[in-house]
């Protein structure tokens, strides 16, 4: 069988491990949207920052509860993972002992979910910042 000169198999381009591909996700975790800002995606970064931070702060203001790594039941652990996604906001909240509400009413329950979702949205934002850093996205 002759070698095909029209063989069009392509190998995927290797991901370049650059400083930015590590820095952008790290900074983006710490400050929502910052991973985009340091890559000069100003509008995207600011919108991500505003959305995630507002959602988190609204959750706190609604007397939502922040989860900690205390090894509770599986839902508590999932809540902790979600909250951890908010990065610097989570650190700020735990250091100041905020978010210790008892979720005694519906609004507080929504607040708790708002904070978890803010963290999860930041995980998505971090992934997007990484893709921009490795050139997979403009």
């Amino acid at each position, binding site marked *: 069988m002759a070698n095909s000169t029209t063989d069009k198999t392509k190998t995927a381009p290797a991901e370049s491990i650059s400083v930015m591909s590590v820095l952008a996700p790290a900074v983006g975790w710490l400050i929502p949207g910052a991973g985009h800002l340091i890559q000069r995606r100003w509008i*995207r970064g600011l*919108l*991500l920052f505003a*959305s*995630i931070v*507002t*959602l988190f702060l*609204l959750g*706190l*203001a*609604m*007397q939502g509860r922040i989860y900690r790594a205390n090894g509770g039941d599986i839902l508590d652990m999932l809540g902790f993972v979600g909250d951890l996604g908010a990065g610097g906001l989570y650190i700020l909240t735990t250091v*100041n002992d*905020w*978010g210790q509400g008892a979720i005694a009413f*519906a*609004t507080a329950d*929504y607040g708790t*979910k*708002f904070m978890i*979702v*803010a963290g999860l*949205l930041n995980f*998505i*934002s971090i*992934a*997007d910042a990484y893709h921009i850093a490795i050139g997979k*996205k*403009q």
Partner: protein
Amino acid sequence: MGTVSITLNHFSAATVFALFASIVFGITHRETTREMVKYGLYCFAMFLGGALVAGWAMWLLRR
């Protein structure tokens, strides 16, 4: 943050959630500005519309 307290009704909470989640989804799931805006609006409609549909479905089940 003991001094600041906000109370949102169910619909307001759903709208706020849908708004910010849609903004993030639009930005992170599409490439061009136009596509981002379009997808963000689509997500917003799905989030809010889905909540309304689910609410009415639960009402029907409850009946």
